């Protein structure tokens, strides 16, 4: 049972946040409102009138629109075409010509009315994620909905795009639209919501106002007290483990995205790389891992040159790697938990020798990791795709931290991960630091970098602008992330 007698009321012009961990039943609830699932019990009232939604079409005609977490757009269509899709304007009856001009005009009109700039002629595949989301919102608004459901809308956005979205939500609410905002990010909830409903394990566990503190909200969500702060002792940096000098990397299109990066990570410290997504962090890490060819520069791991090494060799040299896109690069969803736990160790003792896999050793080690890393799975033989995001990420973390490491690279280690798991993963990273591993954390969430790092390198347009202390005021780091450097902010730690 994903929803157990939930009551929720949304007023006109209200931003109502639905807060809960991954798997708490938020999406299930909203899928019922949107006609994708039918409730077994209970009813839905729109303006006091009971409605039965058999399909999204019913929901839309009752004035309910939804923007899904993963966009439902056709990449090769233009914005206007995508928006028209399913409600095409035609001339000469339902089988007549497509009225592209009218579609285009409708799009422009809606976009202007709500202050949501979209280019109707742009191809969706060429738009950044934030703009694609705007298209989804405009698409819902052209259907004249009164209630807009946004399912985890900020999960894929950069901080700037998130801010933009929040102001859009605010202005939509001011025009009288109601918004249900599904999320597990407390900061955003506090910033935007008029009312908050917290869901845990399919039940409403409380309602709150934005004045409620983040710690209280987190406790409601998780069902116990959680610490949002990362507790750690001062670092004790030792020898230089990773040394990157003059690294230049191009992306797939041949555009220079890492443009002469120098950095050093010492044993027993966490170097955080802060920066807005898309400033070369991804390519920097991929170049270190041997997943992408560097144009110039040097990567050394304890004086051994990593240039030209395959990913296997880099991993074998004692590097642990938590990739930023868990479902694409981190896990094989069709594989079992046990198999995913040895995804990069399967051919090493004791898991494999020669051509043979030692299934018993794999199963035994999996059982151990599952309990050690608190991976919530029915069994180590369950497929990873059936686990929640947080538990999938724990599988990756467990895999990478279950062998002796010299260097750990964690990219977006807690993206799409529930609060309870975030705490756990952060503690594991700090634990790894404390045993003397050099740790490189890359995150577009400034909170995370500030919480974990002992030193912060701010990356902007392929360069490290400055390396600063995490005690530096957040606003100043934010300015650096936007590429604004002042002379006083430079604090070279070398």
């Amino acid at each position, binding site marked *: 049972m994903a929803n157990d007698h939930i009551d929720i009321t949304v007023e006109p012009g209200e931003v109502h946040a639905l807060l809960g961990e991954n798997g708490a039943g938020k*999406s299930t609830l909203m899928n019922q409102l949107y006609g*994708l*699932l039918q409730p077994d019990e209970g009813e839905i009232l729109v303006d006091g009138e009971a409605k039965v939604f058999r*399909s*999204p079409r019913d929901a*839309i005609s009752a004035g309910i629109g939804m923007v*899904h977490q*993963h966009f*439902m757009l056709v990449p090769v269509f233009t914005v206007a075409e995508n928006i028209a*899709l*399913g*409600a095409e304007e035609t001339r000469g009856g339902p089988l007549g010509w497509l009225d592209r001009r009218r579609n285009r005009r409708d799009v422009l009109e809606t976009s202007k009315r709500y202050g949501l700039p979209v280019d109707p002629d742009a191809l969706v595949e060429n738009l950044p994620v934030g703009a694609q989301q705007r298209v989804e919102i405009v*698409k819902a608004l052209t*259907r004249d909905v009164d209630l807009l459901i946004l399912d985890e809308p900020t999960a894929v956005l950069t901080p700037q795009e998130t801010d933009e979205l929040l102001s859009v939500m605010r202005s939509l609410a001011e025009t009288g639209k109601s918004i249900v905002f599904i999320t597990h990010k407390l900061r955003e909830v506090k910033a935007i919501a008029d009312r908050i409903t917290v869901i845990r394990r399919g039940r409403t566990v409380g309602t709150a106002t934005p004045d409620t503190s983040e710690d209280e909200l987190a406790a409601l969500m998780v069902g116990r007290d959680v610490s949002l702060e990362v507790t750690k002792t001062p670092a004790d940096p030792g020898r230089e483990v990773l040394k990157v000098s003059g690294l230049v990397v191009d992306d797939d299109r041949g555009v220079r995205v890492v443009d002469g990066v120098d950095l050093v990570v010492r044993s027993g410290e966490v170097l955080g790389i802060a920066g807005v997504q898309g400033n070369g962090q991804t390519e920097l890490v991929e170049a270190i*891992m041997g*997943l992408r060819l560097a144009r110039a520069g040097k990567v050394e791991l304890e004086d051994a040159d990593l240039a030209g090494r*395959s*990913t*296997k*060799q*880099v*991993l*074998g040299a004692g590097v642990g*790697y938590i*990739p930023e*896109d868990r*479902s*694409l*690069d*981190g*896990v*094989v*969803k*069709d*594989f*079992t938990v046990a*198999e995913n736990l040895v*995804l*990069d160790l*399967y*051919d090493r003792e004791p898991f*494999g020798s*020669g*051509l*043979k*896999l030692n*299934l018993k050793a794999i199963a035994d080690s999996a059982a151990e990791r599952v309990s050690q890393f608190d991976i919530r799975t029915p069994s180590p*033989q*369950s*497929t990873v*795709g*059936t686990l929640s995001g947080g538990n999938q990420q724990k599988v990756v973390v467990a895999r990478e931290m279950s062998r002796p490491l010299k260097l750990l690279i964690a990219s977006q280690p807690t993206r799409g991960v529930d609060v309870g798991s975030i705490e756990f993963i952060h503690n594991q990273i700090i634990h790894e630091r404390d045993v003397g591993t050099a740790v490189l954390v890359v995150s577009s969430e400034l909170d995370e970098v500030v919480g974990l790092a002992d030193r912060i390198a701010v990356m902007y347009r392929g360069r490290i602008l400055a390396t600063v202390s995490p005690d530096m005021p957040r606003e100043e780091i934010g300015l650096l992330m936007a590429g604004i450097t002042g002379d006083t902010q430079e604090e070279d730690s070398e």
Partner: protein
Amino acid sequence: MTTEAPAAPPEKEKAKEEKEESFLGLFLHNLWSANTVTVTILSIFLALVIGAVLIVVSDSAVLSTFSYFTARPSDALTGSWDLISRAYADLFKGAIFDPAAIQALFNGTGDWKTALNPLSETLTYAAPLVFTGLSVALAFRGGLFNIGGQGQAVIGCITAGVAGFAIGLPAGLHLVVALAAGLIGGALWGFLPGLLKARTGAHEVITTIMLNYTATLFLGWLILQNGIRDPERTDAISKTVDSSAILPAMPAPLRVHLGIVLAVIVTAGVAWLINRSSFGFELRAVGVNQNAAKTAGMSVAKTYTMLMVVAGGLAGLGGAVQVLGTADKLTGQVAGNIGFDGLLVALLGRNKPWGTLFAAILYGALRAGGNLMQVDVGISLELVTVLQALIVIFIAAPALVKAIFQLRDARSARLGTSMAKGW
């Protein structure tokens, strides 16, 4: 036997999770998420039902009784029933056993060879299909569509056949060498598209199809050449494989040979390779998530190349078994359709080694039974091909089968479609 975990997470969970699925991924997912055993059996049943209609329609005598159906329905009904039951009884008798022959055996008037002949025929047809089926299934697990089983099998026929008559070796050793020649020939023919895929990204479907033509035409040319062609014959046929290189068979007229035993051993080997070897781990990982495999340090290019080599080798071995067991000479059609049938066998076997073995035996049985059906009732052997095709169509559309039989999953399958449509 197969140690894979049941790869069937709840459908809607999946639909939500998957961000973007390739056509292949979606196809594989649909293939595996179905309740395999039930759907397979129901598919065969449905195919037989449609086959029954075709049998009636194709028989003009029975069909004419339908013209006065309202006046005397019994004529049409009994006529149809007789025809269908005789046809399917023949299918059974030709493929498994003939009760009359068994009866005769017990009475002491028959002979055990006659009683065993249907099974022998079934297994004779099945043996090469096991290898080509495994070839396709293995490649599929690694995310490759090996359409080139036919070409690889043809090359396997050629190398095994030529090794069988061109070199003189003691019995036993000669057989091993000839089989190995088939294996290596097929492996080389698989290596080419594998290498092209790994190095240049050339799609294996295109390259393997082209290599199918190349192999078949090469065979046609080769059997006309001096040294290959049988000098005592005027038609396009090669010399006969030395008896020292022939797969040992049961006494005549039984045709079943050691190839089927080899097929079972190789099936076990492939099952081990997929589920219990590091190469299998790599190929499965590459097959379902190339990016994660790459990130975990696996070499996708190397895996693709190796995979095509092994898949080609399997198909080549199938060709070798065909020449050294069933045919004993090279002709233009020596490989028949074993490569393409291998595709269907792999589909029917859901790309699992043991499933493929059973699917190949089913195909062999349909073929063997079809022969008798043609001789006895006069129903064209093509009907068997139609049956085989229908089975595969139903298997490839599990949602259809589930909807027809109102299986429980059908509801969530419909939900899946509506979710994908979105607005």
